């Protein structure tokens, strides 16, 4: 793609963001928070996609970073009296450091073993958050002072989402992204061609930890209460993975489509069928993994409905 097309696409992302910025004043509180959570899942799915879609290292433990972000925000606001916005940055930094520490050893594992190890790592983080009373208040959780926050959290999430989309787009079209794809396709060959795979995998992993942490922080401030089971919820990892797989992992548009689609379906169904949508999630994963490994976007590309460059 030419430089002009890239600029046009990035401008499109910004326009899309601006359009969403005028919405909240005109809609109900319910719709506003629905939009906020949709944007949150876009952020989560896109960041999961950076490590698992672009690089091919399927992470079953990404909720760890989301939880770390939520806890950093809650602890700093409730116990140290910080303003909530800088805590998002702090959460991102902490999550990135944790990602580097976990990733350095664990990213040596291939395919399913990486996935299982990450599942273990995330469950381990949840146990630590429960046990470390003096820092996290243990199983009691942390409450925030009660304030009206549906506008500030909406805008924070919007900015985060635009940022995440832009970063995912830039990564997807940069040399960095090409190298990540090379690692996914054949790590040995990439290494033989001089790609420092360890460094690139770590960078991708760290990058993919930053945005969920910030999203976790915003979400914590929005719902005003967190405890270990709610923010280290395995199901959040599953949602990230499924949304990106359904949309088409390894693309930029795919995870966005997947997140909006699935979250909307979930929102429409969970009131009437609180557990049925989770059963449907399971079935979706089976179907997508078995029959549509490249997701909706792959499906569309195969039929010529979407240009490869547009989504890739």
């Amino acid at each position, binding site marked *: 793609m030419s430089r002009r097309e890239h600029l046009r696409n990035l401008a499109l992302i910004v326009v899309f963001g601006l359009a969403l910025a005028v919405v909240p004043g005109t809609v109900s509180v319910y719709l506003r928070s629905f939009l906020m959570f949709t944007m949150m899942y876009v952020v989560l799915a896109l960041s999961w996609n950076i490590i698992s879609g672009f690089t091919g290292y399927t992470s079953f433990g990404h909720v760890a970073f989301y939880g770390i972000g939520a806890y950093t925000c809650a602890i700093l606001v409730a116990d140290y009296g910080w303003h909530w916005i800088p805590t998002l940055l702090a959460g991102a930094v902490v999550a990135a450091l944790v990602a580097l520490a976990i990733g350095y050893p664990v990213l040596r594992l291939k395919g399913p073993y990486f996935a299982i190890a990450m599942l273990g790592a995330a469950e381990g983080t949840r146990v630590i958050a429960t046990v470390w009373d003096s820092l996290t208040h243990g199983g009691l959780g942390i409450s925030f002072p009660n304030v009206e926050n549906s506008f500030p959290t909406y805008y924070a999430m919007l900015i985060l989402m635009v940022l995440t989309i832009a970063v995912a787009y830039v990564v997807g079209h940069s040399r960095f992204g090409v190298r990540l794809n090379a690692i996914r396709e054949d790590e040995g060959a990439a290494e033989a061609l001089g790609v420092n795979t360890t460094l690139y995998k770590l960078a991708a992993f760290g990058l993919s930890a930053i945005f969920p942490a910030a999203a976790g922080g915003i979400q914590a401030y929005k719902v005003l209460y967190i405890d270990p089971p709610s923010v280290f919820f395995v199901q959040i990892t599953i949602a990230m993975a499924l949304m990106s797989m359904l949309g088409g992992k390894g693309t930029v548009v795919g995870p966005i489509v997947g997140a909006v689609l699935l979250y909307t379906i979930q929102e429409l169904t969970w009131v009437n069928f609180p557990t049925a949508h989770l059963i449907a999630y399971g079935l979706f*994963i089976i179907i997508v993994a078995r029959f549509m490994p490249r997701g909706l976007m792959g499906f569309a590309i195969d039929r010529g409905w979407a240009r490869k460059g547009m989504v890739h």
Partner: protein
Amino acid sequence: MERSDVRSLYWLAGFLACAYALPFVVGASNGNVHFTERWLAYLATVVLSGILQGGVYAMFAVGLTLIFGVMRIINAAHGEMVMMGAYLTWASFFHLGVDPLLALLFTLPLAFLFGMVLQRVLLDGVVGQPELTGLLVTFGLGLVMIYTVELIFTTDFRTIPYAPATVQITSTIAVGQNKVISFAMAVAISAGVYLFLRFARQGKAIRATALNAEVAMVCGINVRGVYLITTGLAAALAVAGGALVSIQFGFNPETGVVYTLQAFAIVILGGRGNYVGALIGGLMLGVLEGLVSLLVPNGTAMVELAAYGLMIFVLLIRPAGLMGMKEA
């Protein structure tokens, strides 16, 4: 064995020594270690019940290792099968009034059938595909199972009051009767499976398929039939594990994840696809969990970390585990 292979075995042994020493070190620094007779009796009790516990773990982990060994599928729904076994036992205990162990007489055939259906409907299509596909498909299956059970039984914790008495071993060491019964059952079932794999015709066919499916097929073994029996057997082992776990601990639909990860840890520690390795791994995990719960402050919450830590470090130090072959 190659030199690097031997070296990684030493590293693993070193790591395991550290892993077992760690609870003692933490305990000592928190004043939980006293060399009195009473404390030593506690320690002996914990190690003993760890071994009893480990026997049950080992039994259901064998199911995971069987599926992996024969089909190279990592069954992420294994813990959910254990959980399902616990609920089957609970339902037959409270609704039909059947003794939990007697219930095995009909839950095991049911589980075997479930495994066979699963194999035909879902897993046959996954054999031979990249390992990640199998993992994702079974993961999805696990979700379906969790929330179907939740739909029927809600998320409440359930327990089965069974054999609450204790067995005095010496004047100071005593363990729960339910633990002893579970262990005895687990040993009997594991031994049965071992004999089946070793001597029965079908068992030999399973081992041959695990060694090399293509050669087995050329030798006239019905490989698809072997897959069917393997998954049936694995499901039955998981459900039996669930029954034995249910008479000792509370459970709810979401406890399956913990069992899945425990089984993974055991299989990885013992060596993927290795039957004897899984048994050893199970006992080792049981004892380590016991030590953590006794010595580490807040230990009962930290117990889960034993399995996760073992799993991750063994994968990093020696992916082949204690008894495993080097990956081809």
